[in-house]
Structures are given as C-alpha cells and as structure tokens.
C-alpha cells in the first residue's frame, strides 16, 4: 500500500484531468496573449501582421491609459481605507463584549451585498444614482442638502467616485467577515491580561488585535489592491468608461479595444500590462502571507 502512494504513475490519473484543463485554459491563454500582443489582427482575420513592440509604445503614449491607471489606483487607495481600515474597526467592535451578542446578525447583514453579482449591483445603483428617480438624490433632499443634488454618474468629476462608492457598499462586509474569522483565533487571555494592565479599548486594539491578525490584514490589503486592478463589471455596467473617458479602467479599456474597436493586438497589450501588475502584486501577497506563517 505505502508503495503505491509513492508512485507517480498511480497519482497522475487523479491529477492530470484538472492539470490539463488548467494548463490549456488558464496558462496557455496567458502565454498566447503575450504573443498576440506583438501582432496587428482582428477578431475574424486570418492574417496577422507582426508589429513588434509598436502597441506597447502606443499604450504608454495613450492618455487614456494614464486615466485608467489613475482610476485603478484610486480604486485601490479608497478601498484600502474603507474596506480594510473600516472593516478592521468594525470587526474589532463586533468582537467587543458589549456588542458581541449581536455579532452574527450584523455580520450577516454587512456581508449580504458581497454575494450578489457585481453586474446586478451595478444595475441597481445606476438606478439609485438616477437624477430623477434615484434614492441618492432623494435622500439628500430629505436631509435638506439640496445643493448636493447631482447627476453623480453623469458628471466626469464625480462619476469615478460614485462607481468606487458602490464597491465599498458591496465589499466592506466581506472584509469584516475575513477579519472576524482571524480575530476568533486570538486567545481570550491576551485580552484579559491587557484589561488587567488597565488598557482601554483603543490601546487593546493597537497592542493586541492588530499585531495578532497582521497576517490577515496583509492578505486583505493585497486582495483589495489586486481586486482594484481587476475591476471591470461595475464600470462597464454603470458608465462604460464615460462620461468622456473619465471612468475608464484597464479592464474597460481592454474590452473597448477588443470588442468595440476590433484591435485585438492592442487589447492583448493592455491585457499583458494587467497581467504584469496583478502578478507582481500576487507574488508580494504570497511572500508576505508566508513570512507571516513562519513568524
């Protein structure tokens, strides 16, 4: 028996089907994509013209690319503050003895939006932002803030923030849940001894809670940043990069190049850049979460 388990030939039949699928539909496209980015071609053309680095040069001269990178970065920064920072504080409070009885109710409510399709959430919030019928302006009027009433998605100054806000609405509860899971592993006596030392809530938060779950904070931060560079659905649904190109992100830029302008080579170039960014970030995440485990 033991012998069989050390034999690659008996193991491979279990592993191969999954491995082959992953290799041919996850890894192969990734590699092909880099190759495709060196050619000029369109969706139904047979011919491909080799253009070398031309599309990369063009991309780095394209002002929309910088808008997109700026918007993705804005997404990352705001999400770190709200989802990671805010989520951490909310989770810590839910662990507090004064409210812990209600923890499961609140965390369920906060988590609900993150199980809904981003596209559905985008369609819903597009209606909520609607200047005539939407709740957002209605709520502002009710609060007497008439000067705030605004076509949130229609103004190129506010549109990207309106889209990012929806993402915060949807995913903060997800981070709360991740942090709660990590906090449940903190030994109770750490809190008790901190109380005996006379530490208040804020001191306990910084001296016990944060150091104890710092690995999860790192993982959460990286998930958030990587997610910010993968954004596509909500922007596509709510603004499709507009008004103008003001809410363009890398994902919508890629889609537009491929399926609106039929410039597959240029789109592959954008995809390669997305790959480089998300892959580098993922490597950082792996490195950090591993060092956390050893430490």
């Amino acid at each position, binding site marked *: 028996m033991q012998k069989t388990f050390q034999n690659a030939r008996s193991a491979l039949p279990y592993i191969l089907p999954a491995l082959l699928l992953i290799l041919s539909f996850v890894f192969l496209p990734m590699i092909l994509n880099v190759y495709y980015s060196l050619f000029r071609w369109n969706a139904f053309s047979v011919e491909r013209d080799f253009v070398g680095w031309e599309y990369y040069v063009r991309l780095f001269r394209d002002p929309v690319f910088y808008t997109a990178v700026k918007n993705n970065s804005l997404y990352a920064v705001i999400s770190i503050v709200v989802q990671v920072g805010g989520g951490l504080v909310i989770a810590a409070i839910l662990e507090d003895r004064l409210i812990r009885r209600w923890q499961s109710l609140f965390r369920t409510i906060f988590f609900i939006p993150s199980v809904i*399709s981003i596209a559905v959430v985008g369609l819903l919030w597009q*209606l909520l932002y609607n200047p005539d*019928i939407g709740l957002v302006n209605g709520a502002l009027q009710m609060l007497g803030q008439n000067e705030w009433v605004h076509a949130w998605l229609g103004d190129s100054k506010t549109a990207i923030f309106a889209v990012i806000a929806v993402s915060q609405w949807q995913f903060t509860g997800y981070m709360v849940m991740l942090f709660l899971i990590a906090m449940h592993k903190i030994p109770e006596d750490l809190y008790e001894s901190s109380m005996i030392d006379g530490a208040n*809530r804020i001191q306990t938060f910084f001296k016990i809670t944060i150091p104890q779950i710092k690995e999860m904070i790192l993982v959460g931060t990286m998930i958030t940043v990587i997610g910010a560079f993968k954004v596509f659905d909500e922007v596509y649904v709510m603004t499709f990069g507009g008004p103008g190109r003001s809410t363009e992100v890398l994902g919508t830029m890629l889609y537009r190049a491929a399926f609106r302008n039929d410039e597959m080579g240029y789109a592959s170039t954008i995809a390669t850049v997305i790959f480089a960014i998300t892959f580098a970030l993922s490597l950082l995440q792996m490195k950090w979460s591993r060092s956390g485990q050893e430490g």
Partner: protein
Amino acid sequence: MTLQNKVYRTVIWVWFLLYSLWILYPLLWLVMNGLKSNSEFFLDTWSLPKQWLWQNYLAAWDAGIGQYFFNSILVTLVSVVLILLLGSMAAYGLSRFRFKGVDALLLIILSGLMLAPQVSLISLYKILQTIGLYNTYWALIVPYVAFQLPFAIFLMRSYFLSIPRELEESACMDGCNTWGIYLHIILPMGRPILASAALLTGMSIWNEFMFAMVFVEDTSLRTIPVGLMNLRSQLNTNFGVQLAGLTIAALPMIIAFVLFQRQFVRGLTAGSVKG
C-alpha cells in the same frame, strides 16, 4: 455599566443601525419598486407599493429572465459538479501521494490563483472559436471550471491533509486500492469542504459577467447577469419589470448565503481568497 460604556454602546448602536440601513434599504427599495407600476414608481419611490404588482415578476420572467435563469442554473450546476469531481481527485492526488515532482505540480496549479481572468479574455475567445466551443454552453463551462479549479483544489487539499491516515490504513487491512480509498474514505470524510467549495465556486460562476458576455453571443444562451443588460436596453422605461428581474437574479445567492452561512464561512476561513 459605567457611563463611558453606556455612551460607547449608544454610539456603536447608532452607527451600526445606520450602516445596516445603508446596506439593506437599497435592497428593500429594489424589492419594493419591483412590485410597482411605472407611474407609481415615478410618483413615489420611497413608500410601499399601493398595489402589489406580482405580474412584474411574470413579465420579467417572460421577457427573457426565465431563459437566462435556466441557462445560469445549467451552467452553474454542470460547472460545480465538474469542479467537485476533478478538484477532489486532484486534491487527493496532491495530498496523499508522495512522489518526485508533486510539489512542483502543486505550485503550478496554485499559481493559477494569481492570474486575472481579463488577461486571458482575448486569447480564450480565440481558442474557443478555434476549437468550435464559442457560443455554446461549453464556452462558459470549460473556462469556469478551469479558472475555479485552483481555488477548489487549494481548499480541498488542505482539508484532506487533516483527515487522519490511520483511517485509511485500518480500512485497507483487508486490501483496497487508491480508488477505493478516494471513494470510500476521502469523499465521505471530505463532505464539509466539498459543500464549502461548491457554494463558493457556484457563487462566483452564478455571478460571473465578463466571460459570459464575451464567450456566447446568442440571447438564448445568456446567463442572468448579462441577460439583465439585454433587458435594460429592451425595457428601457419599464422600471418595475427591470427591478423584478434584478431581484430574481440576486435572490438565489442571498438565500443560499443565509441558509448555508456555516459552509460559506468555512470556505472563507480555509481560502481567504476573494471571488
């Protein structure tokens, strides 16, 4: 309770109730207005419907949601079954067997977790056209399975590692092969993690939008998130019906989450990976 604690508790309650309202009210608004006629929707979006127009749901269903819903269920079910089967086999192979190269295989598979789906959008589109799967259910199922497998294998492998080996040894006193162990020990013992993997991967697939938009083009093959986009342009001004459609799309996952929260949380605990 000290005064300070009382103030603290009040502040927290006000904050959390407002936050809950901020989360729940838009969803409530969605359900409420999905039951209103168009004129009532414009007159008063805040109140409960005066007349509960359940026929909005029927209209949405007939306008295409019925077909999209069926497509979503079919694609999600087939994908999840394949993920559970292939994923548990691979996780078994990677957790129970020790041979040269096993770590390299594991690394390759897990690095699939790091790759953003956008990056392969164009070449996959091309590949699916070349092998003739484009614009069929398989154009969605195959990429979904391939992209969810690394996560499912990651989840299941760490769980299988925690199943004690003595169990297998005692079960195999009177002789059985590796397939028997997989079938009679690993799968039954691993049921909790299979449930978590099914829920989390099923949820991502049900909600997936980009592949679903690009890899099929017939309206009759569309899944719900993309179908709703069609509905938006089709029913431009009929908001009640649109909102009813959105409700139908969102409800199954909310119900699944509330009912199976334990399995969800177990999956998140083991995975800590988004989407």
